[in-house]
């Protein structure tokens, strides 16, 4: 089993989502990036040891949390136009981002506060709680202000960068905390909390990351080398969204990565074929797709190898939905040669019925047995029995996947029963897609990943 634990312990995909900033911020053009990072770090280590002092956030939370969360759509994220953004468009993006974040954070804090006292007293859970309190406190001074000049916008973007950085390791820390607390809270409650929390987190990070990416690709701050995403160099990108994402390319790159790991651990390299319409492109967030595909391929490859079916390639079918008769293409002004020439800051809202892509991953890995099947969507540690007490799931590290995936390696027929599937589904569902798993026990598994696009952006 140790080899399988190792197999599923590769953090790259998650890092790509969780912390693209850590590597790139050094060259940031933001005014004081180093200071930001150290402040954040200091704050975290401090709150780890001391009971956080109640602050102005306590008064703000109930009021903010009483406001509904804006349901984010991909359309929201591209509505400020195609990069390079003009100063005015950038300010508008900042204002939009500011209008969302405090409410989102307050809702999370509220949810954490509603957990049992004994759970939030756990050092790991409290660390996350304090992170949220801290992040909200950095945003509260902006409340009631209008970001109307570029200096404000730079400072605001710094706050966002710190926020993204602070919450990078949330998932493994929460997982550890809940594992330690599992005697005091039911699996159902943990699942409900995590489902909500992880989904909310996806949106919060995306809002923040989108503005940061737009910042670097705006005319005033144009700086490709500092950006966490390739947006400025690539005209297909709007912030963190690739408007011409080719799933087949993602599958091939994630596939060869997962196959490398397989080769290392099993000495065999599973094969895959892509059929259907491999040339399909659509608008989506590449880091989300990479995470999902990596998780799904890990499961498929591992099952195939362990079932001795290396000769049967994993079949991946890409099916673009035909354009619906009722949907109309989204029109975005093309990037203007003279910088900042976006005619309008706000484009038409995108069609939520826009056609998407369905990707089927079909393996001959023996399927999932009927007793495991009901648990594939739960976070692994919630289904631990008391007997597992002596056997903590692997060494805890900051690498989310090792923590999470190791937990699932106890003889189950597919890998990554930890966070892999539920989190992948959370990513897929975020924009209205989904994941369905159909097992043919004794034969193989079909996984259907449906992703909703934003439609054609012209």
């Amino acid at each position, binding site marked *: 089993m140790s080899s399988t634990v190792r197999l599923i312990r590769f953090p790259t995909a998650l890092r790509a989502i969780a912390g693209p900033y850590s590597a790139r911020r050094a060259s940031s053009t933001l005014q004081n990036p180093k200071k930001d990072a150290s402040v954040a770090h200091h704050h975290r280590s401090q709150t780890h040891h001391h009971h956080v002092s109640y602050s102005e956030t306590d008064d703000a939370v109930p009021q903010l949390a009483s406001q509904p969360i804006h349901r984010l759509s991909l359309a929201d994220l591209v509505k400020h136009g195609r990069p390079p953004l003009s100063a005015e468009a950038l300010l508008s993006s900042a204002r939009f981002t500011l209008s969302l974040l405090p409410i989102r954070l307050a809702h999370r804090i509220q949810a954490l506060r509603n957990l049992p006292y004994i759970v939030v007293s756990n050092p790991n859970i409290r660390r996350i709680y304090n992170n949220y309190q801290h992040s909200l406190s950095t945003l509260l001074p902006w409340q009631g202000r209008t970001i109307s000049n570029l200096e404000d916008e730079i400072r605001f973007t710094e706050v966002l960068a710190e926020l993204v950085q602070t919450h990078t390791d949330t998932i493994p820390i929460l997982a550890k905390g809940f594992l330690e607390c599992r005697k005091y809270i039911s699996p159902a409650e943990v699942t409900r909390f995590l489902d909500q929390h992880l989904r909310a987190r996806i949106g919060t990070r995306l809002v923040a990351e989108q503005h940061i990416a737009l910042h670097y690709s705006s005319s005033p701050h144009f700086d490709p080398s500092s950006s966490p995403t390739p947006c400025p160099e690539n005209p297909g990108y709007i912030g963190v969204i690739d408007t011409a994402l080719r799933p087949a390319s993602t599958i091939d790159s994630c596939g060869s990565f997962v196959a490398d790991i397989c080769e290392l651990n099993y000495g065999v390299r599973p094969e895959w074929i892509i059929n*259907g*319409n491999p040339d399909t492109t659509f608008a989506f967030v590449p880091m989300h797709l990479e995470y999902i595909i990596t998780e799904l391929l890990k499961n498929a490859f591992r099952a195939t190898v362990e079932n001795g079916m290396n000769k049967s390639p994993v079949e991946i*079918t890409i*099916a*673009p*939905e*035909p354009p*619906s008769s009722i949907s109309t293409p989204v029109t975005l002004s093309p990037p203007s040669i003279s910088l900042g020439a976006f005619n309008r800051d706000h484009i038409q809202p995108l069609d939520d*019925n826009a*056609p998407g892509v*369905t990707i*089927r991953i079909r393996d001959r890995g023996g*399927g999932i*047995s*009927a007793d495991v099947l009901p648990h594939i969507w739960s976070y692994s540690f919630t289904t631990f029995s008391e007997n597992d007490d002596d056997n903590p799931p692997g060494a805890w590290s900051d690498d989310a996947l090792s923590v999470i995936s190791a937990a699932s390696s106890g003889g189950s027929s597919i890998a990554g029963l930890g966070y892999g599937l539920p989190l992948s589904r959370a990513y897929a569902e975020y924009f209205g897609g989904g994941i*369905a798993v*159909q097992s*043919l*026990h*004794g*034969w193989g598994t*079909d996984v*259907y990943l449906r992703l909703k696009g934003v439609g054609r952006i012209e």
Partner: protein
Amino acid sequence: MPRLMLQHVTAAVRLSRAGELRTWGAAAARAQLPNRRQSHTSSQSHAHSPKWRPVSVLDEWVAKEARPISLRQLMVFGRSLTESRLISSANYVRTELPTRIAHRIRDMQKLPYVVVTNKHFNEVYDLYYTAFDTFRKVREVKTLEDNDRLCATIRTMLNAHLTVIPKLAMGILECNGLKDAAELDKFMNTILRSRISRRVIAEQHLALTETFHAPWFSPGAKLSETDFIGEVFLKCVAKDVVSHCGDAVLSIARHAYGPDIPLPEIKIDGHLEANFPYILSHLEYIIGELLRNSVQAVVEKHQKSKNKPPKPPPIEVTICESNQHVIIRISDQGGGIPRESMPYLWSFSKGPASKEILANLEQVPKMAATMQELQIDNDDSNNKNNKPTKKMEPPHSHHLHQKYGHQSAQSISQERQQEKEQDDRAKYSSLASLSSRPPNLRLGMGLPLSRVYAEYWAGTLALHSLEGYGVDAFLQISKLGNKNEQLTTRATMDAV
């Protein structure tokens, strides 16, 4: 027990004495004539005022609980059959049928007035009430002659109720908007499940009676355990059922589309030995519907494609057997299900498509009785080849015995005697007829009805659409009778 007899539930077409294919529908077609005329003259339904009936009689019966019978009990009855067991089975059926029907009548009475006065619902209501009145008046069965009379009544009723499913489906469509679609679906599911349970009980008893009267039968003799599964349940070899249904569907498609349109190949792989006891007609109906959907989608997509390859992509069927289940996966590349249809996929209500489906269903009351003789009008726009329509004859039905391995030593000698009976029995199954209509006649109830049947026997039916590419359908079958705990499930389901 001649195994040949076991297929009487399903076989729509029997080998006649002369060895030629003969449809059973001719007699029934004549019987249905008044009905046909009616459906021609009044395609639009009019509100039907309910006939007055005393409520108190029904109340008495509604107060009784249904007495579920487990699959095991069904089997034990047949394993060692005596006169007293047969009589006791008769009395069970005699009281159980009116009880169960009474509950369904009460369900209908609770629907809004506007729904039950719909022409189609009202006809079903009358059919049910007549059946209820008939069965509740049957006196206690004490002799074999009493039992024969009961069996004759059961046969008449089974036959008269063949039109129930299409009528209900039309009723639902016409009541679009009069009541919440989800509520109507719930009603449909209950009434259809109940219908399955009643027909299983009734057909089981008819089969027991036939066995008892068979010349080879000696009362109390134990039947061989290895051969015997049950009167109603047959040992189904998944691969054989799929390939038989596939042949039938392709032949119907060949007939509907004409000789020049290339049809997809149906490939079968996986665990080809997988077998399980099941009601063959139910399995054939489900598989037939799924394959029909696939064939139609693949052919029509292929016809529309521009640079079409000479042959459309195959339909791939994978059979997978595990300890408790057999899963049949049907994968096609027929373009998938359009988004707009998804909300109505599993519903008997069809939203915007209601009108077209209603028009198609207008042809079904005839079909329910005489599917094999369905005439598609030459001017029917659905009919692409404007050729005179011949009889729809599912091919290879005469191979049924060999294919399903139902040939036994006694069966040869008994075959002829039983032919008439079996022809009669075949009429009881409206399912076989529903699945042999032309593939382009959409009724919109294949999937929801198939799901009711699959779930009734503790199975599942799921569909995954890759829009723009194709559909994967998954039918999961519980290996009933192998596990005791599933009998409880069955008993619970049976109580509807």
